[in-house]
């Protein structure tokens, strides 16, 4: 019958097959959050592996299961593939007990990416909440690697408290490379001299000289993204210039298992990054 032979040859790799990766480095980021640099054991796979900012991998701990984790590294660098992971469930807690040299499995990369090509010649605002900075870090690296191609680039970071800020040691490098970094925390401590409050408050007073020509990319809790896009539209940004990264239960990552559906979208293959106007009508439907 040779059913759908064309699509089979277009994707000859068995999508269920995970590659062996070795944990090459573990960087403790914040309490309960660490970045794992993973290296493919197979040199050919290592060389061939590329990803776009915003894409994710399925990390596999045999006997425990898989988790969908956004790649948090530089898309222009090959070799080590960083994943910033918060301890949340069985798999992530067990991963936190592993040490450098351990092997796990990896399938990927999967999913849609941030519109970095569209950013060329435009102002860009990145709004990250908590661990949501991890899927946006590849965008930061990508934009800063060729900074002149873009207009104003602003990063707004929100965290619960100063200790929960992700990658703080990199902020100075990013600022030197031409990124306007704005930081705010929900709860202050004595040594904190920065902003206090939600990212939306910061966004509200952000200079946006050319809102019609500004892209906004946001990743964080859904409610934060909702207020961020509402605030951005109030400031004159267009719905089709706003991008969000959504999260749902992910099981197969290849559009076959049904778990990650959000209305008509499969988050694994249509997302996780969506142009806001594509999901606006269902964004605030309860329990969808």
């Amino acid at each position: 019958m040779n059913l759908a032979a064309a699509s089979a040859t277009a994707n000859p790799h068995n999508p269920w097959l995970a590659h062996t990766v070795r944990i090459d480095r573990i960087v403790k980021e914040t309490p309960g959050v660490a970045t794992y640099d993973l290296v493919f054991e197979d040199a050919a796979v290592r060389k061939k592996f590329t990803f776009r900012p915003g894409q994710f991998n399925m990390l596999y701990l045999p006997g425990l299961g898989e988790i969908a984790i956004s790649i948090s590294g530089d898309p222009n660098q090959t070799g080590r593939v960083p994943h910033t992971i918060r301890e949340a469930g069985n798999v992530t807690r067990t991963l936190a007990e592993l040490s450098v040299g351990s092997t796990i499995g990896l399938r990927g990369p999967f999913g849609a990416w941030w519109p970095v090509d569209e950013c060329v010649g435009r102002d860009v605002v990145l709004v990250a909440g908590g661990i949501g900075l991890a899927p946006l870090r590849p965008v930061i690296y990508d934009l800063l690697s060729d900074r002149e191609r873009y207009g104003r680039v602003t990063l707004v970071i929100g965290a619960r408290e100063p200790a929960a800020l992700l990658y703080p040691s990199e902020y100075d490098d990013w600022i030197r490379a031409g990124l306007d970094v704005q930081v705010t925390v929900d709860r202050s401590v004595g040594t904190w001299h920065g902003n206090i409050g939600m990212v939306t408050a910061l966004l509200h007073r952000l200079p946006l000289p050319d809102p019609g020509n500004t892209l906004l990319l946001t990743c964080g809790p859904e409610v934060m993204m909702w207020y961020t896009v509402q605030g951005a539209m109030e400031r004159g940004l267009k719905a089709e210039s706003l991008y969000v990264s959504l999260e749902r239960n992910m099981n197969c990552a290849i559009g076959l298992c049904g778990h990650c559906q959000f209305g008509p979208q499969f988050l694994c293959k249509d997302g996780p990054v969506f142009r806001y106007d594509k999901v606006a009508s269902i964004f605030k439907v309860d329990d969808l």
Partner: protein
Amino acid sequence: MTRSDANDVDHPKSGGTRQLTRFLDRQDLEVLIQRLTDDGYQVVGPTVDQGAIVYGDITTSADLPIGWTDLQEAGRYRLQRRDDDAYFGYVVGPHSWKKYLFPPVTVVASADRTEVGWQMSTPDETPPRYAFLGVRACELAAMKIQDKVFTGGPFVDPIYQARRNAAFVIAVNCTQAAPTCFCTSMNTGPRCSSGFDLALTEVVDGFLVEVGSDAGNELIQRLPVTEATSKQLARGETSRQQAVDQITKRMDTGGIQSLLMDNLRHPQWQDLATRCLSCTNCTMVCPTCFCSSVSEVSDLTGDHIDRERSWDSCFNIDFSYMNGGPTRNSIASRYRQWLTHKLATWHDQFGTSGCVGCGRCITWCPVGIDLTQEVAAIRSSPGLKADDIERDASSNGEAAS
């Protein structure tokens, strides 16, 4: 092909020119089964088991549900003797062919602990070669829909694809319908028009046989068939028309995508939640439902792990579990997910409805929920687009980072 519908995919079996209709004598059905067996096929088809007509191995025509029929209505299914010896004198049972193409439990990958760390592999097995005997038009449509799901890309499920490619399909035209049938509303039947190798229409003393593919044409050369007489053809036409005439259930599919997606906050979902048990029966018997979950199955040493894929259901509360809790925590939200997916968002995803009108979900629902009535209820009182966005927004005004 006389009919084109949204479910038609580019499939070798849907092409070709219609050939002469042949006649296979009733007693020579045995020869058909033997030829398929000799060709290396595992013939599977309807059998009577556990008080129902279910699909199982067929080694002889005596395994078929000779002289049995099924009585179906919402929440009820019973077998009953017929007053004749028809082989295919029933409608559809709780099984569908997806259990062969998309097995209820199957290993998709394995992991082995070695001296150099975990090594992963995928099964390298020769797929079983099934000959499906007795595939109804709605089931042909269901296969085409699952073809799109599993092989339409961007990723292809190798297990489904291998089994599908190896399968031989013998369709059987319906000559009767149940009160739960509504294939005519979904444009999927009852006439088998494409997607088969051979199609049979059962008449009193035998079968009219149509060829739908090269493989079917090759097989029919080796069967003791004769050219069908005009009398036999007329009998077949009468029998098939009988099924059409018996279909009473209708579902108005006009604008159904916007009807459902514009009514995500309709009170009917809450009404449904007072009846639906969230038991998953509808998704298990549905010939197109494809949701699954992979679980880790370890041997005693923990050094060998099989990744086992099992049928799952959007009605299971864990199905939408995400860091801290299920996204769809209520029965109303889970039924809404199932129905909107089946009838509305399936179109966005696969360019076709996910419903073929077979009526299984109506028959096998323990409380007799009938999706066609639920759609009609929403249609009869639309416009309740109570947009709670403002209210939601003001009640979630904290913890924005």
